[in-house]
Structures are given as structure tokens and as C-alpha cells.
């Protein structure tokens, strides 16, 4: 767990993790909740409540998921669905004063994060698991040059000397496609465009070759052509490093070209999870289906009104007895308003939390 | 909360001075000079035998009238200038804000003395003078808040609807910048009380026999060695009132500013 290992990995190439991931990707995908997969992150029964002014807000309820070594998983949901909160809760980054987090277990890379001491967890963050956020400008220090900020990660986490860090910083900038190092390293964040800043954030996140990268809406603030660049960069780096990526996004469009598996959240719960191909083409939860049908597509000559989901997402303060989506659901049966459905397997490694599970193509 | 209570108490004392005061503040009785505090005269009497408590209570009325009306004058003019500067920008902004800078370049007390000398001492002049001194502070806050509001799309929306500039300023800009201005006003009141006291102390403010907290302290200083209570009692009341309005301002800032809200 010292810098030497990280360094050899970097110089000698991606042997350990990428081999494991190659096995994962080529081999048979394990069945849902069946044989334990070789996972980098395994979350069981995660719940997060916020206490505000005496009111309890259930942000995340009973969330369980797993990310295999080297696997790309997308966590899709609208604002308020709990997708970001659940990721922050895993890394214990929520304010302890207002957030109540509970989980049966959170296993990351062989550590149980629910039991790990704060100091130990701090060592893991930025080292074995790192994050990239939506707004790179507010995540970068405006008073430090890009070079200084990347070097800082290297010197603090890996204990590199200044000259070693400088060399490594150049390699990292190369890797994320920022040319003209010496000038770029002396630039300040405000001199960079949004896309460039996101590249810098990715370089910093990958500085220690993490086993898991959590990317929270990494392209939401960017233009489509730049979004395409960043998504391609992330996909390439993932293959190169053999790292797992948890992509948190509201845009179900960008997951198709990126994620092996897709998890869909609604109102704090996981409503569907499965191979991206299946979830996008033939979703079994009405919310996923409605969402996909309501998106106007650039590859189709379709005119006029869109099939839309009626109503609004529920107020997170309201306690809903049955399925949270039932009031908006076109398939709802009386049972849906009474009891909340659990995730049920609908195929290999594929599950949906719905009493009806409509069987229709998008 | 404490600030609010003190401020309300101070204003209440000023409003109901004639009911609350046990004696006539101007009743001279040379046989009763420099009496120590007693049941009949809780604060004692001054060098003319006037009841000090009654003078402090009526002083509250004078001081608060000056402080509140000057703040109203300063706030009104400052907001008009600041909103105009912020909303129109360019030349009018430059002109107005440079004028404010010039006013700020003079120490306020010097400016006050100069104006008071020219206009002559009276309660209404005092309110105008102190209000005038406060203009730049209000203008600056109003201008910077206006710049923020002006960038909001509802202002653009109002323009596309054909709303006039005056209409936009009155209907959209002013209501949205009121929060910081109310805070500033409550923080300005204690400053105005102190300025009034200072000018009265220099003999340029409220003229005897009308009491104000300022001239009570001033008159008392002549007997500071022989009878210190004449300075101390009005001084303490003045300090408590100033503290109260300051606390009220801080409290209002917390209530009105969403950034400081928990």
C-alpha cells in the first residue's frame, strides 16, 4: 500500500487489475445475487436519511449493488433520486450532523467501509477510489497552478519528490490529452475551458491508479462535442488502467456507449439493474421504459408529441405506502399503491422492482 | 432577539416619553440640585435640579427621531442613487459612484460639522445632515445588490414584456434588494445616534433645554469629577441602545441572508 506499488503499476503496465478485468469481461457474467462476483465495491442495504428541522427525508432506501473489478456501471436517476447521495454515503462524505447513514456492509477492495476508521478511509480516498465531479472549476483551487495541484496529489499520496512529481504530472497530462505541458502546467484553472478543466480533474483522479473511479455527472456542464471527447477519454482510460468506473448521470443517453451495466434509481430506490443493452432496449420497469420513450432521439425521424411520463417525482418528505412510481405509472395495479415491490430477477444479472414488469420494447 | 427587545424598548420609551417620564424634563428647581438617586428621582437630578430620568427618557425621543429619520433620508436617497447607478451602468454609474467616493473621502464628523455650521442647529437639520452622511453607504449596497438582480432573467423578461425602466426598478429591483438594505439600516441607526451625540456634544446639534442623549452626556462632562452620575447614567443608556440596534442588525442579517441561514 505504498507508493512503490502504485509506481510499478504505472511503469510496468496494468497487469493485475486489467487481467482480472479481462477475465471478467470475457467470462460468463455471474447471475444476479448468485455466485459472488469478483467485485471492487459491494454495497448492501444502504440507507441515507437527512434530518432537517425535525423532518426526516429518506434520500436512499435499502440500496444494494456491486461493481466488478474493471467494470463500468452507470447509476442513472433524476435530481432527488438519491444517486449522488448514495455515492457520497459510500465514501462517508456526507455531513454527519444531518445525514444518517446505515448499511449492512460496504465492502471496498477488501475493506469494510462501515467499520473502517476515518483515518484509514481518508487514505483510501483519492488513492484506491477517487471522484470526478460535475463542476471542475469549484473542485480546483483557483490560486494554484494546474501543475501544482496535480503534483500535490502525487507528493502527498505517493510521497514522490518534487522532480519525480513533475515528470509524472507531465505523463498524466499527456494521458488525458492536454498538450503543451510546460505552459499548461503553469496555467491557472480559470485559464482553462470547461473541457480542459475536466481533463485536469481526471488526471488528478487517476494519479494513483485507483481501483474505482466515481464520476458524478462528469459531462453535464459541457457541450455535446466536448462531452463526446470526455466520454471517449474515460472509456479509453478505463480499458488502459483496468479500473472500475461508477458513472452517475441523469442522462440515460450517455450510458449506452459506456457502461456494462446500468442501475436506475427513482425516489431513493433502485428500480432496475441489469446489462446496459437489455435495460435500454427492453426495460422491465415502467419508469425506465417511460423515460426512454420520452427522450427525443436524433437518430429517428419522429415528429410531434412525445410519449411522456405524467406527473412529477414525489416529494422526498412524503411517505408513500406502495411503489413510489405508482402515481405516475401507466401500468399501475391496485397492489402497487399498497405495497412496495422488491427487486426481482427478470433475466441473467437483470432485475426490476415492479409488480407488473411490463414486457415491451422501447 | 435581545437586540430586537432593546430596540423595541428604546422606541417604546421614545414614543411614550410623556407617559413614562415621572417629571417635566424642563422643570427647574434650584433647591433640588445634584440630588443622588432616590425613589422620587431614580437617576437623581442635574445642576438645575431637573429630573435626570425624565431627561434621559425625553432624550430617547429626540435621539431616536434624529437617528430614524436621518436613516430614512439616507436610505431613500442612497437607494435611489445606488439603484440608478447599478441599473443604468456606464456613465451614470461612474458619475454617481465617483460622487459617493468624494463624499466618503471626508471623515463623516468633519462633513457633519461643516454642514451643521452652514445650516444651523435644529433637530430637522440634524436629521438631514446625518442622513446626508449616510447616503454613500446605502448607495454602495444598493448598487451592488442591483447589479446582482439586474443579471437575473426576470429583469430581462420584464423588458421583453415592455415594462419601463422605472417600472422594472420599482417592481423588480427594489423588492429584491430590500433584504440587505434593511440590515444596513438597522446597523446605521446606532451610528446615527452616536453622530447625533457627537454633534450635540460639540454644541452643533440639539439645543438646550431639549434633551438628547448626546447633549446630556455633553452637559454631564462639566461635572464629571464632582458628580459623575450625570455622565454615566445617560452614557450607559446610550451604550445599551447602540448595542441593541447593532445586535438587531446582525440578527436581521442572519434572518434575511439565505447564505448565512442554516
Amino acid at each position: 500500500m505504498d507508493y512503490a506499488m502504485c509506481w510499478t503499476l504505472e511503469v510496468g503496465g496494468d497487469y493485475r487489475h486489467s487481467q482480472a478485468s479481462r477475465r471478467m469481461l470475457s467470462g460468463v457474467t455471474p447471475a444476479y445475487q448468485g455466485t459472488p462476483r469478483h467485485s471492487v465495491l459491494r454495497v448492501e442495504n444502504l440507507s441515507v436519511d437527512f434530518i432537517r428541522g425535525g423532518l426526516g427525508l429518506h434520500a436512499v432506501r435499502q440500496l444494494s449493488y456491486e461493481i466488478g473489478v474493471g467494470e463500468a456501471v452507470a447509476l442513472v436517476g433524476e435530481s432527488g433520486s438519491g444517486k449522488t447521495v448514495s455515492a457520497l454515503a459510500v465514501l462517508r462524505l456526507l455531513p454527519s450532523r444531518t445525514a444518517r447513514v446505515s448499511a449492512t456492509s460496504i465492502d471496498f477492495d477488501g475493506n469494510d467501509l462501515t467499520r473502517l476508521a476515518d483515518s484509514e478511509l481518508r487514505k483510501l480516498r483519492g488513492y484506491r477510489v477517487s471522484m470526478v465531479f460535475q463542476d471542475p472549476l469549484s473542485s480546483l483551487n483557483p490560486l494554484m497552478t494546474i501543475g501544482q495541484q496535480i503534483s500535490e496529489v502525487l507528493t502527498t499520496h505517493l510521497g514522490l519528490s518534487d522532480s519525480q512529481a513533475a515528470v509524472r504530472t507531465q505523463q498524466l497530462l499527456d494521458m488525458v490529452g492536454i498538450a503543451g505541458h510546460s505552459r499548461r502546467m503553469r496555467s491557472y484553472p480559470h485559464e482553462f475551458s470547461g473541457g480542459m478543466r475536466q481533463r485536469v480533474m481526471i488526471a488528478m483522479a487517476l494519479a494513483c491508479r485507483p481501483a474505482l473511479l466515481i464520476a458524478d455527472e462528469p459531462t453535464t456542464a459541457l457541450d455535446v462535442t466536448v462531452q463526446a471527447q470526455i466520454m471517449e477519454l474515460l472509456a479509453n482510460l478505463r480499458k488502459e488502467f483496468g479500473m472500475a468506473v461508477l458513472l452517475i448521470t441523469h442522462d440515460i443517453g450517455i450510458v449506452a456507449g459506456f457502461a456494462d451495466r446500468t442501475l436506475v434509481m427513482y425516489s431513493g430506490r433502485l428500480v432496475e439493474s441489469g446489462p446496459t443493452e437489455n435495460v435500454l432496449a427492453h426495460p422491465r420497469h415502467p419508469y425506465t421504459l417511460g423515460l426512454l420513450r420520452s427522450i427525443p432521439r436524433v437518430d429517428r425521424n419522429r415528429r410531434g408529441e412525445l410519449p411522456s411520463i405524467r406527473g412529477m417525482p414525489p416529494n422526498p418528505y412524503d411517505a408513500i405506502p406502495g411503489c413510489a412510481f405508482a402515481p405516475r405509472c401507466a401500468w399501475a395495479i391496485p397492489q402497487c399503491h399498497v405495497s412496495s415491490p422488491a427487486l426481482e430477477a427478470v433475466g441473467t444479472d437483470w432485475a426490476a422492482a415492479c409488480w407488473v414488469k411490463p414486457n415491451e420494447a422501447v | 432577539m435581545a437586540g430586537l427587545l432593546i430596540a423595541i424598548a428604546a422606541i417604546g420609551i421614545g414614543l411614550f416619553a410623556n407617559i413614562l417620564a415621572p417629571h417635566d424634563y424642563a422643570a427647574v428647581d434650584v433647591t433640588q440640585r445634584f440630588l443622588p438617586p432616590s425613589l422620587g428621582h431614580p437617576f437623581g437630578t442635574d445642576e438645575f435640579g431637573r429630573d435626570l430620568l425624565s431627561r434621559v427618557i425625553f432624550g430617547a425621543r429626540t435621539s431616536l427621531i434624529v437617528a430614524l429619520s436621518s436613516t430614512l433620508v439616507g436610505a431613500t436617497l442612497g437607494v435611489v442613487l445606488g439603484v440608478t447607478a447599478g441599473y443604468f451602468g456606464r456613465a451614470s454609474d461612474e458619475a454617481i459612484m465617483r460622487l459617493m467616493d468624494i463624499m466618503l473621502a471626508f471623515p463623516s464628523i468633519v462633513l457633519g460639522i461643516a454642514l451643521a455650521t452652514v445650516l444651523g442647529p435644529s433637530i430637522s437639520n440634524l436629521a438631514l445632515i446625518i442622513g446626508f452622511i449616510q447616503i454613500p453607504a446605502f448607495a454602495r449596497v444598493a448598487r451592488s445588490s442591483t447589479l446582482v438582480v439586474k443579471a437575473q432573467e426576470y429583469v430581462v423578461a420584464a423588458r421583453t414584456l415592455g415594462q419601463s425602466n422605472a417600472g422594472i426598478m420599482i417592481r423588480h429591483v427594489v423588492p429584491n434588494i430590500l433584504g440587505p438594505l434593511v440590515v444596513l439600516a438597522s446597523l446605521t441607526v446606532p451610528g446615527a445616534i452616536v453622530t447625533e451625540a457627537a454633534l450635540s456634544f460639540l454644541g452643533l446639534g440639539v439645543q438646550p433645554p431639549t434633551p438628547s442623549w448626546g447633549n446630556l452626556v455633553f452637559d454631564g462632562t462639566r461635572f464629571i469629577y464632582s458628580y459623575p452620575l450625570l455622565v454615566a447614567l445617560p452614557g450607559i443608556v446610550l451604550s445599551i441602545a447602540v448595542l441593541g440596534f447593532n445586535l438587531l442588525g446582525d440578527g436581521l442579517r442572519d434572518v434575511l441572508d439565505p447564505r448565512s441561514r442554516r
Partner: protein
Amino acid sequence: MLPVSEEKAPVRAPLLEVRNLTVRFPLRAPVFARGRHQITAVDGVSFSIHRGEVFALVGESGSGKTSLARAIVWVRRPDGGSVLFNGVDLATLNGKQLRMSRRGFQMVFQDPYSSLDPHQTIGRILSEPLRVHRVSNVRSRVYELLTLVGLEPAFAARFPHEFSGGQLQRVGIARALALKPALLVCDEPVSALDVSIRAQVINLLIRLQRELGLSYLLIAHDLGIVRQIADVTAVMYLGKIVEIGTNDNVFNHSGHPYTVALMSAVPVPNVTVERNRKRIILVGEIPSPGVTITGCRFHTRCWLRTRLGDPEICTSVEPPLEGRVDHSIACHFTGEVMR
């Protein structure tokens, strides 16, 4: 733009005509150097919108589309060119005439939270245009407007913070409709909304357009939405239109390398489609408008230029926007794009 409407009424002037519109901004510079340093956000843009037409303007941030919209609704005077509404040049109008003219074109904003005054009730917000233009029966008109956009009349007494983004955007649309305009300028009307709400608002816009016979100038970066609802689409890059035409032409027969790249960059939520698509990933980002670019303004990022072996003409001659009435393209090698 649309040949169809011209066949029916050849003499009728377009509802909105934009001629050679230019918008410049001063760069932050020392006082003595002011006026010399300017960036041109909109650089000589011309197009027209006919009655009942949905005209979409597509571009990324920095393309000048928002500056163009603000100049068209005359909240910012253009630095060159003219805007003609119903054949009348807005620059020639006095204050009163302009106010009257404004009733005909209204705007819907991107951010419903910032475009509604937080200190006013929904009723007051909706009555503002009516009061400014001295329309009678304000109260019943406000209720009518709320119903028109699918909200309850009782909402009039409530404040914006009590509503969700989608509901507020409906209020924004209702306000724009208060004066019964012929043209709505919609600047990214759904991009600030949650995904499941977007389709509802798009459908509302489609329905209103049909029922009230409105014309839209739709400004959007989301090509999916544009393809779904626009009749005519113009693609902007660095302040200029690089491709304009009927929706079918622009989407199915794209003639500008930027349009092609933009379309290929829009993700499609289907793994099979995504796998089999031809993807063009542009290098770099849209240059800052302060930088002077000679020749074609897209040449620094153009994939076609690279493929053709850097023809000299791309860096020396700016290609004019030319073609047929239903499809014009500003590219020297548009024939190569189509292949």
C-alpha cells in the same frame, strides 16, 4: 425559408426577418483602449421565420445563439443589421410603438428559477404584461392562462419557491403567452428541467403551437428535441450560421462537417445503435470569439479538412452560406461531406 408558404402566399412578408444581424461585446480592457478590443458574438446572421413555423437555432455555448435571441427580442440593440417584425424594422420605432410591437413577440427563458421574480406571486407575475399593456379583465385572463398551460387557477396566489421546475416553466410560458404573441422565442426551454419533465413541456409547446398558430424561434443545443419539433433548422458556429435548411435536409442530408460531428456526438440510448454508428469526435473546443480566425471559422476543428489533406482554401477563404432556398451550407467541400 420554407418554399411551401411562399407558394401559397408569395407576397406575404415573413413574420420575422433578421438581416445581417451583428452583436459585439467590448472586451475588458484598460479605459483608453476601449472600443478597440471587441468580440463579435453574432456575425452577420440572416434568416426569416414565417407564420406557424418552428425555426430552430442549434449551437454550442459560445456560438452566439443567446446573444442573437436577446437582439431579436430587442433587449439588446444589435451593433449592425436589422430585425423586422411583420415587415417593420424595430430600429425605426419609438418607445411607444416598440412597446406595442413587443406584444407580438415574447420570450421563454432557460432557467425558470431565475426568470420569475421570487418576491411576486404567480398571479402578479402573470398580470404584469397585462397591466403594462393595459389589458382589461386581468384576473380572469390570469386564470385562463394558467389553465392554458395545464396549471390550476388556485396557483395564482402562491409564490415561485412553492413549485417545481417544470411547473415554473409552465408559468414562464403562460407569461409569454399573456399578450397573445405571434412569435415565441424559446431559449433552451427544457434544458434546465428533469428528464421525465422535459417531454411534458415539449408536448405543451407543440400543443400550444398547433392550437394558437404560433411561430417559434427555438434555441437549443439538444438536437433530439430540434429534430422532433422544428420545421427549419439553422446550425450556428462562432457567431455565424454554417448550415440552414428544412429539418429533413439538415438532419438527413447534412452538408456541413460541423453538423455531422454535432449529430454524431449526441448520444443515443441504445447499445446497438451506439455500437454501429459512425462517430466523429472533434478535437479541441469552440475557440474563444476573441480570437481572429482567417478562412473558414470551423477549420481549427474540422475533421474533413484533415481527411482532405489540409486544403489551402479552408484557411484563406471564408466559405459563403450558399445553396438552395431549402438548404444552404457554408463549406468549400460540402460535396465531400455528403459522401
